[in-house]
C-alpha cells in the first residue's frame, strides 16, 4: 500500500474509532445514576417540577436514542452542543481549556524525552554496573510514585524550603496579563516581548512539568535502556566493531538509530499516558486544562462536556499515533506499509 493511501485509510479509520468511543461514553454516562440538573439542584430546595422543567429544557427527558441521534448528528455538523451545567457551547469550553493542556503536555514531553532517553543511554552504556542499577531503580521508583502524590510533595517542599516557585495556577494574579493570542502563556509572552511574563509563565510551569515529565521520563528510561542493550548485542554491532570503528562511532551510527526507532513508537503510545497524567497534574496544580474540565464534568454529569472532552482526547491520541506511525515508516526504510 502506498504511503498516501495508507495515511488516508488511517484518517478515515479515526471516524469509527471516535464514534465507538462516543457511543460507549454516552451509554456509560446514561447508565450511571444522576444527571447534571440533579447534580446541581438535587441538594437545594428546588422542587421536582422545577428540576423537571430544567431537564426538559436541556432535552434530558427525550428518549435515549433520540438524545444519541441528536448528539451524533451534531458532531457531524461540528456542533458539540452546550454544556449542561455551564451553559456555554462545548466547543468554546474546549477551546478555552485546550491551550493549558497543550502547554503542559508539550513542555512535559520536552523534559521527558531527552531526560528519559539520555538516562537510558547512560544506563545502557554502563550496563551491569552500579550506575545502571541506580538509574533503573530510580526510574522504577519514579514510575511507581503516583503523579498526584509526587506533585503534592513538590508543593510542600516548595513551601517548606521557601523556593521561589508558584505552587498553583498558570500565571501570577498580581500582574496584568499580556494579550492572549494563542492561550499558550509562554508563546504569548514571547509575542508580547514581555520578559517578566515569560519568566512568570516558566515559573508556573516548573512544578507541573517536573511532576508529569519525570513520570514519562521514567518509562522512557527503561525502554531506551532495554532497547539499546538489545541492539548492542546484535551481530552487526560486533561486525562494526571488528571492522575497526571506534566505540563511539559504533554507538552513534549503528546502535542508536536502530534503538531509537521502537522508542518512537512507544512515545506515541505514551501520549495517552501523558494525557492521563495531565488530568491528575492539572488537578493538583489547579491548571484549568481539559483534564480538570473533564473531572468537573464527570462530577456534575455534564454529558455534552464529557463527550466533547472524550472526542478531543481521542482525536489527540489518534493523530499523535498516526504521526508516530508515519514517522516510523519514513525513518525505517525496511518498514513497508
Amino acid at each position, binding site marked *: 500500500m502506498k504511503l498516501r493511501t495508507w495515511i488516508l485509510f488511517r484518517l478515515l479509520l479515526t471516524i469509527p474509532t471516535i464514534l465507538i468511543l462516543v457511543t460507549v461514553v454516552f451509554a456509560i454516562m446514561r447508565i*450511571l*445514576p*444522576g*444527571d*447534571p*440538573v*440533579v*447534580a*446541581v*439542584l*438535587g*441538594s*437545594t*430546595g*428546588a*422542587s*421536582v*417540577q422545577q428540576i423537571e422543567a*430544567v431537564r426538559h429544557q436541556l432535552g434530558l427527558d427525550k428518549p435515549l436514542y433520540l438524545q444519541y441521534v441528536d448528539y451524533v448528528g451534531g458532531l457531524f455538523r461540528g456542533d458539540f452542543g452546550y454544556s449542561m451545567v455551564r*451553559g*456555554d457551547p462545548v466547543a468554546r469550553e474546549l477551546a*478555552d481549556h485546550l491551550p493549558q493542556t497543550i502547554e503542559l503536555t508539550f513542555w512535559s*514531553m*520536552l523534559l521527558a*524525552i531527552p531526560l528519559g*532517553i539520555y538516562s537510558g543511554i547512560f544506563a545502557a552504556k554502563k550496563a551491569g554496573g552500579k550506575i545502571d542499577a541506580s538509574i533503573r531503580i530510580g526510574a522504577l521508583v519514579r514510575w511507581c510514585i503516583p503523579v498526584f502524590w509526587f506533585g503534592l510533595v513538590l*508543593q510542600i517542599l*516548595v*513551601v517548606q524550603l521557601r523556593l*521561589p*516557585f508558584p*505552587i*498553583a*495556577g498558570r*500565571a*501570577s*494574579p*498580581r500582574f*496584568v*496579563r499580556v494579550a492572549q493570542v494563542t492561550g499558550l502563556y509562554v508563546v504569548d509572552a514571547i509575542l508580547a516581548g514581555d*520578559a*517578566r511574563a515569560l*519568566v*512568570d509563565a*516558566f*515559573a508556573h510551569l516548573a512544578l507541573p512539568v517536573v511532576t508529569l515529565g519525570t513520570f514519562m521520563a521514567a518509562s522512557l528510561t527503561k525502554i531506551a535502556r532495554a532497547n539499546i542493550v538489545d541492539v548492542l548485542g546484535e551481530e552487526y554491532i560486533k561486525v562494526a566493531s571488528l571492522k575497526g570503528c571506534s566505540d563511539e562511532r559504533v554507538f*552513534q551510527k549503528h546502535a*542508536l*538509530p536502530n534503538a*531509537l526507532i521502537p522508542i*518512537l513508537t512507544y512515545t506515541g503510545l505514551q501520549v495517552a499516558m501523558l494525557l492521563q497524567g495531565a488530568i491528575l497534574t*492539572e*488537578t493538583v496544580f*489547579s491548571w*484549568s486544562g481539559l483534564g*480538570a474540565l473533564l473531572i468537573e464534568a464527570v*462530577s*456534575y454529569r455534564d454529558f455534552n462536556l464529557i463527550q466533547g472532552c472524550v472526542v478531543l482526547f481521542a482525536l489527540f491520541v489518534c493523530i499523535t499515533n498516526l504521526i508516530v506511525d508515519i*514517522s516510523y515508516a519514513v*525513518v525505517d526504510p525496511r518498514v513497508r506499509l
Partner: protein
Amino acid sequence: MLAFWVVCEEMKRSYLAIVGIILIAIFTISVGYYATKPAPRQPRQYPTVVLGATVGILTNLDPGQAYGSGDLSLNNVVFDPLYEVPPIFPAAKLAPRLAASDPIVSADSLHWTIALRQGVKFQDGTPFNATAVKFSFDRMKDLKSYSSWILDSVQSIDIVDLYTVRLNLKYPNAALKGALTMPVAAPVSPSAVNRMGLESFQALPVGTGPFKYVEWVKGDHLTLAPFEDYWNMSRVPKVNVVYKIFSDSAALKLALEKGDVDIAWNYIAFSDYASLETDPSIKHVVAAQGSQQLLHLNVGMPDSPLHDVRVRKAIAFSIDQKEISEKIYHGVYTPSEETFFLPGFYPKPSWTQYKPTNIAKAKELLNAAGYPNGIDVTLAFNPVAFGRETGDVAALIREQLGRADIRVTLRTAERAALNAGQFEMSVGLVTPDYLDADSVASFVTSHSWLARKVRLNDTLVDLLAQQAVGTTDPAQREKTYGDLQDRLANLVVFVPLVNVITYQFYRTNVIGVLPYYFQYTPWWTIDKKTS
C-alpha cells in the same frame, strides 16, 4: 521531535551539554531574580488582594443564571440586590439596599410594593430605576436557568412610577424578602445586556455594586476593581480583588502559607485549621455558620428496613452528635439539635427527645420492628464535595450504629449519584439558598427533589410549611415552624449531625476581613497594609 533528537545526537555531545547548562543557568537566575523582586506591574492605583477559593465552579457570572457558590459570592459584591444581609443576622433585620425601605405588602400578601433608591447608577453609567428592575426580573424569568426557581412565587412585576415597582405573587410568600437578597434577584444594566449580547454579558456582567468585573480568565482567576461612583460612599472598596481558583484545599492552604494568596476564602479543610491557627503570619475570623451536616435516611427503598419509623428512631437513638463534634471536629462544629438550625430561622431543639444516646432503647425499637438480630444498611458519602472529614464522620457513624447491631456498609459516591437517591443512607450538607426559614422548609416538602430522593411524602409537613410561609406574622411563623420541626423529628428522615461554621484565614497584612453568612461576602471592607 525525535528526528531533531537524532540530529542532535550527531553533534558533539559536549556542545549540547554546554548549551543546556547555559540555558538552565539563565532560566534559574531569571526565576530567582524576577520571583524575588516586588511586582512593579500594578497599573491600577489600588493594592491587590488575592482571594483563593476551592468551592464551586465559576460557570456563568450572569446573575440571572449564576448558581455556584463562587458565582453568588462574586455577584454579591458586583450587584446590589434589593435587600441585603448584614454580617450578624437574624432575618428580621434584612436591610434595604437598592430598595429604599421595607416592602409594603397588601392585605392578601399577593402584592409587594417596593420603593427604590434614587441616585444610583450602573457601572456603565446607565441610571438605575424601576424600568431596570422590571427588565432584570423579566429577563431572569425568561432565561429559565438553574437559579430562577428561587423567585418562582413572583408572577409579574409592574412599574408604578420611575422609582417604585410592584411584585405580583402567585401565592403568599413571607420568604420573598429573603429571596430578594440573592444576586439572582439583583438588577442588571439593560443597556449593557442589549449592547454586549448574552455571551459577553455572561463573562463580564454589569451591575450597581461596589466592585466591577474587569477580567475573567476562565478556570484561573477573576479580577474585580472598585466602582468609584458607587452610590454608598462608605462602601467604595480600597483594593482590587483577584479571585483565584484552586482545585484542592491542600493547594489553597499551601498558597496561603506561602503568601501567593492573601485570603483563603473558601474552603480550607477542617483538618488544616489547627496548623494554620498556630502560624503567626496568618489570622482568621469565624465566618457565621451557614450549613448543617445531616444523615439522610431513604424511607422508600424496596426491601430496606428503613421504611419502618421504629428502625429510624433506633438510628436516632444510636447517633451521638456530641461524639462526632468532639472526635472529628474537636468541638468546633457543634452538635445539632434543631432542623432549622440558624438564628432567625425559629430553631426548636426537637431532636433532644433522642438524647442522651440510648443503645438499649435502640435495640428495643429494632426488636419491636421485627429485627431482633439487628439490620444491615448502606451508608454513602462523598469524600470530597462536602469536606474531607466526611469519610471520618461516616466511619464514626458506622461505629456508633454498630453498637446497636445496625451493621453499616460504607460506600463512596459522586455528587450526582448521591443526589439521585440510590442509597439507603447518605451523609450530606444542607445550606439554605436564601435567608429565610422557608429555605430549609423547602427541602422537606414533598415537591422538593431532596424529599423525593429520600421518598419523604408527608401531608402534615407540606401543610405546615405552606402555612408558615403564607403568613408574615413572626409569632405565627415561629409556632408553625416549631410544629414542623417536631413533626420532622418524629419522622426521622433528615437527622441533624453538626452545625458547620467556616474559618476564613488570611494573612496578617490584610485588614477588614469580616465574618459573613453563605455567599453574602462584604469584601468592600477589605484593605491591605502597605508597610
